[in-house]
């Protein structure tokens, strides 16, 4: 008989070839890198600076996507991350403008992310509203708030330490943004894979009822996950503002979709219960690499979009057995 029936005999989210698919994002990442290295290696693609650039410009998406992996693994979604990033950036910048030291600004900024996260968590777990709606509403609300607070004006950041730490600085020759994203991805990886909390997240997303029967406090787990997402979005906001030495209300627009794409591309199931931070990291880098390479190739914007869109689909199709 045809392979057709075989596939359909199991739910889409529990593919047995999931393992293999997890590697697809790495394989594809390497393939894309290789392709660009061969075709545009001589046009500067392969320079250390350019490779660092890719890592740097994807840092915010990576940080958001790591937390998004937690959110999605727990069976929820967070669309408010983009505007939360802007909120945190503005909070930090305004606190510094008011004359406080940068560590205080950082604490305030992360605090603002935690506030949004806890509101999301409250509405999702206590009131029981689907997270898509809660965070969509929150995304708008916070963006409106960002606009209101600053009259849409940018707020510049003069603090050199802050800008170096969160933005354009380097440590031992490595851009601080790259360090941030690697550190966050590593922590995320360890938490998801090697701690009880990570297990509880996966259990909650895999089968909430079963998790509850096993004593997992799934509400608390979800609440925590939204808190984490808020904090990560806030950190991303600080990175945006450090990189630009400015904060602006429109930071992070569209970041939520990019981050979700990185997560799914990495092999995490949108239906929850499965998550891989390393895949997410690779997914984020893959997207960044494609964007970077296509520009260096000299494609015009419409071509860039077509190729990038096509690659996203093919990257995954590639990992499927033919016809399966």
């Amino acid at each position, binding site marked *: 008989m045809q392979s057709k029936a075989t596939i359909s005999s199991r739910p889409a989210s529990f593919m047995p070839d999931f393992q293999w698919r997890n590697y697809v994002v790495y394989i594809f990442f390497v393939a894309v890198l290789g392709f660009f290295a061969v075709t545009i290696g001589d*046009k*500067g*693609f392969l*320079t250390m*600076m*350019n490779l660092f*650039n890719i890592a*740097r*410009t994807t840092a*915010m998406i990576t940080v958001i996507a790591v937390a998004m992996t937690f959110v999605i693994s727990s069976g929820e979604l967070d669309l408010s991350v983009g505007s939360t990033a802007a909120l945190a950036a503005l909070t930090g910048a305004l606190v510094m403008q008011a004359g406080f030291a940068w560590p205080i600004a950082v604490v305030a900024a992360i605090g603002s992310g935690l506030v949004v996260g806890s509101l999301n968590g409250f509405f999702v777990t206590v009131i029981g509203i689907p997270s898509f709606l809660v965070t969509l509403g929150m995304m708008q609300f916070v963006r409106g708030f960002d*606009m*209101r607070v600053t*009259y*849409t*004006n*940018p707020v*510049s950041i003069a603090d050199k330490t802050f800008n170096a730490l969160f*933005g*354009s600085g380097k440590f031992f020759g490595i851009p601080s943004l790259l360090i941030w994203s690697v550190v966050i991805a590593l922590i995320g990886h360890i938490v998801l894979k090697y701690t009880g909390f990570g297990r509880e997240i996966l259990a909650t997303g895999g089968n909430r009822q079963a998790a509850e029967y096993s004593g997992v406090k799934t509400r608390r787990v979800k609440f925590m996950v939204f808190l984490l997402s808020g904090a990560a979005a806030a950190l991303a906001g600080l990175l*945006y503002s450090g*990189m*630009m*030495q*400015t904060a*602006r209300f*429109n*930071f*992070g*627009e*569209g970041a939520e979709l990019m981050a979700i794409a990185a997560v799914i591309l990495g092999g995490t199931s949108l239906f929850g219960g499965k998550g891989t931070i390393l895949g997410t990291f690779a997914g984020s880098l893959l997207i*960044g690499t494609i*964007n*970077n390479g296509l*520009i*260096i190739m*000299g494609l*015009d*914007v419409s071509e860039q979009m077509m190729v990038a869109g096509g690659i996203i689909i093919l990257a995954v199709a590639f990992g499927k057995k033919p016809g399966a």
Partner: protein
Amino acid sequence: EIAADIQHPLWYTEPSAKTMEIAAMDSIDGVVVSDGQRGEPGFPAADLKLTDEQIEKVRAGKFTVAISMGWLGDDWASQQLIGLKETFEKLGIEVVAETNANWDDAKQIADLETIAVLKPDLLVSIPLNGQTTAQAYKAIEEAGTKVVFIDQAVEGMNPGEDYAAIISSDNLALGMYLADALAESLGGKGDVAAMYFANDFYVTNLRYEGFIARVMAKYPDINVVAAVGHNNPNKGQEVADGVLARYPTLNGMYASWSIPAMGAVTSATVAGRTPDDFKIVNENFDQIVALNMAQDGFIAGISSQRPYDQGVAEATVGALALLGEETPSYVVVPPLKVTRANLPDAYKTIYRIDLPTEMTEALSQ
């Protein structure tokens, strides 16, 4: 006159004394209203010239250029690109990269960093924001690339040293022409609304300011009864719907770009208004508003930039900079006021081709 209870945009600042002074003039034709960001006077784009010798030198240089746009998708951007690319082609300068940040500052920075890798000799770019993207421009400049800015410069870069020039429309004048066109079409009196782009964006801010200044200074009988924002051109219609519902007897509207303006056109049609009792002016001279104007529709006046000329000017300044020549730091492309009367000429001026037959026919009806 501006209604007392009007809600100006969040970023609005009162026009300066100088602006008010010019706004009160009878005619502003030939006047460069806007100063550069550093107060420098504008240099008319038409006066930029390259000698044959200079052209030869540029050709021999085998220069490369990258273009980083903030958005695409309107005639302004595409005409600008045509002007740029045609001129670069003539000058033998190779376009090695073209990017579109799609209104996203962070994307623009990523674009600029990628461009930096290519080490082009020249960068022509419109910064989405003068502060957020400043670092990225500085980095490119420091790596030896000459920079030409469209519309605005970024903070911390100085003309002559860090960048060659800003080439911009006279945005205050654009706004003032809009006020003129609206007032003319209304016979100098009526209630109007201003629909502005709500985000803080340097050039649109100036246009709104110019419009308001001109109405205040020159048209006491034009009452601006409402100012409303949109943050997405596609939402123009929705916003116009609301305005017309609330002010059913409104006589006219300043509708910012062409897309929101066409939204307002639909809105007015649906509201049962006619071009006789409702006028719309806008600041993009593109095919759709031109057609509507030719058909004697709601679009009564357009304050047009000259994006093609601006592109040519940018490329020219760029070429001069590549040769190490002195360039004026603030080059202004004067706007063009388009009404039904001068439509064919204006079209020819801006698009360098004759008015499409469709419009010619509509005009003659």
